[in-house]
């Protein structure tokens, strides 16, 4: 009999997940049920204090804002990424265009955020141009508000949305668009009724790849945000480094994980279901699912 080495081959991944995902998560779970120590760290005593503190109205307000900012940033990212992915998939030199999408990754994340400060800051490039054109005398305050946070978040996560969208659109049979036009669909109808349902898998991946990391954003709101753009990531960081309430930081983290987890599952289920048109009274039964649900990565 042949031995099946399938499981053995998967061992490196299991190890990787254990060390970098399961173990840290376990530590956070344990910490969240502990009592806080005065100067950081935890006391090994069971307590629900950290979870009781979650009911704080300020914290809930920040949570709502985080959801809102993540939602808006994700929607904008997808709306920009869709035409980008489409045009790359249909262009003659895909390799070059994909390369250009990847280029920004050669620069450190934080440096790229600072680049935006150099562009939009009071003494930044845009303000210099505006002053030179005589449109303003003072500086325009672009930074340190929610708009700046959303702008930079969209910029940061755009490639993560473009790449999965590109790869599904690239596999799409463009003859189908012609068929749709032939059958009476306008250009927009063809895209909406034929392209979008057939690249659903890519859209789900792109949404998860942007929404989840943006929900946990920390550096961007810290560097380009203001009072109105403090997000859950910043609260957690403050609890760890300033207030030194590690159990609370852990319980908020748990909240973020659970929320994004629920959001991802809900979204995947809903989009899977709606990809099948319901045919009333025709006796046409439900059919097998097609949309492959990608595993969302936690950033």
């Amino acid at each position, binding site marked *: 009999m042949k031995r099946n080495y399938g499981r053995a081959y998967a061992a490196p991944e299991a190890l990787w997940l254990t060390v970098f995902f399961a173990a840290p998560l376990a530590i956070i779970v344990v910490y969240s049920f502990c009592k806080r120590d005065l100067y950081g760290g935890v006391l090994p005593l069971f307590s629900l204090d950290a979870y009781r503190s979650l009911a704080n109205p300020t914290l809930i307000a920040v949570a709502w804002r985080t959801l809102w900012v993540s939602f808006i940033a994700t929607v904008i990212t997808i709306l920009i990424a869709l035409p980008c992915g489409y045009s790359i998939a249909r262009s003659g030199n895909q390799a070059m265009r994909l390369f250009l999408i990847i280029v920004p990754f050669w620069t450190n994340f934080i440096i790229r955020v600072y680049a935006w400060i150099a562009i939009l800051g009071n003494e930044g490039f845009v303000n210099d141009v505006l002053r030179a054109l005589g449109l303003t005398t003072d500086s325009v305050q672009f930074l340190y508000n929610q708009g700046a946070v959303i702008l930079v978040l969209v910029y940061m996560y755009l490639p993560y949305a473009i790449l999965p969208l590109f790869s599904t659109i690239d596999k799409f*049979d463009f*003859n*189908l668009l*012609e*068929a*749709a*036009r*032939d*059958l*009476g*669909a*306008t*250009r927009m*109808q063809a895209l909406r*009724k*034929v392209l979008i*349902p*057939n690249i*659903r898998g890519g859209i789900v991946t792109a949404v998860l790849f942007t929404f989840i990391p943006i929900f946990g954003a920390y550096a961007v709101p810290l560097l380009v945000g203001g009072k109105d753009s403090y997000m859950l990531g910043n609260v957690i960081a403050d609890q760890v480094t300033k207030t030194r309430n590690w159990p609370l930081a852990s319980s908020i983290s748990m909240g973020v994980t659970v929320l994004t987890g629920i959001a991802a599952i809900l979204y995947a289920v809903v989009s899977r279901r709606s*990809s*099948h*048109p319901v*045919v*009333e*009274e*025709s006796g*046409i*039964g439900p*059919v*097998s699912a*097609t949309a492959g649900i990608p595993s969302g990565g936690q950033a």
Partner: protein
Amino acid sequence: MKGSDVTVSGISKSFGAFKALKGVSLEIQKGEFFSLLGPSGCGKTTLLRVIAGFEEPDSGIVGIDGRDVSGLPPDKRRCNTVFQSYALFPHLTVFENVAFPLRLRRLPNRLVRELVVKHLSLVQLEAHADKKPSMLSGGQKQRVAIARALINEPSVLLLDEPLSALDAKLRQRMLVELDAIHDKVGITFIYVTHDQQEALSVSDRIAVMDQGNVLQIGSPQQIYENPASDFVARFIGETNLFMGMVISREGGFATVEAPGLGEILVEANGEAPIGARVSVAVRPEKIRIGTDSPGPHEELNVFRGLVEEPIYSGFQTKYLIHLPGGGAVTVFRQHANWSEGVPDIRWKDEVFLSWSARDSVVVESDARIVSSAAPAK
């Protein structure tokens, strides 16, 4: 008669330096089963796409029912296409694929259901309404594509090599079915194919195309029996082409001196003056083969030769006969009465070939074809 007439006049289309269509003009009648036949790259699919509205011609006009539709997008033309790749929507069931055009028009559910069921039964697919296209066989996919293209009740159905992905047996069956559907719906069919058998067996008329030009338009019989050029003669069926020079004319006949063969008597109506270089086409099945001399006859061409390659294929045998002068002739002999003891003709037998002058046709000699075909002989 239902359907529309389609007029194509002076259509040219280039893709970069490649001229796909060079001023093509056609008139297709209402309800006609019209085929565009030619080798790949001849421009037939481009012409179909121009009629459908997918390609904007560089010049020329497409008219449907006398109305100029140039510039109209595909969704505004009363024609629908059956694509070579079927182009079924993979995310929709068979039912919803066929219903797609109706959903776009927001027809009430009851009417949609009625029309879809009607069209699915036209292609005998009622039982497969719930399936996804990926669960269907090639022939079934093809039928869905046909039902979907017909549900808008177009006045012209465009078919782009619809059977090319099917195996030979199935292709035959689908062809018969297509013909039946054409009879039933009665609209104009424009059928693109590179397969001359398909075109001959279902078309009312055929346009033979090559290199962006229409070479001949006619009924299958006209195209087959009276090819306009040696390209058409070669492309449609098998044929013997003899190059030669007209040496004499008498009545409706001309005598052509063909190197390697000798003198051939052909029927000719004015188009072959003495001294003209012409091609003579003779279909292999028109030539009688026998071990005895057929006897003298005024209008008969008779040659003697040696059997080189008998190829038996059941219903007939194909012989390659070498003539003393160096020429070669292909002959088909049907086995209609094998049992009656017709003398078997074998390899290296000496035989007599004969055909009526009326069965040999003078065709336009296309220099390009001649030069490209000459080394092969």
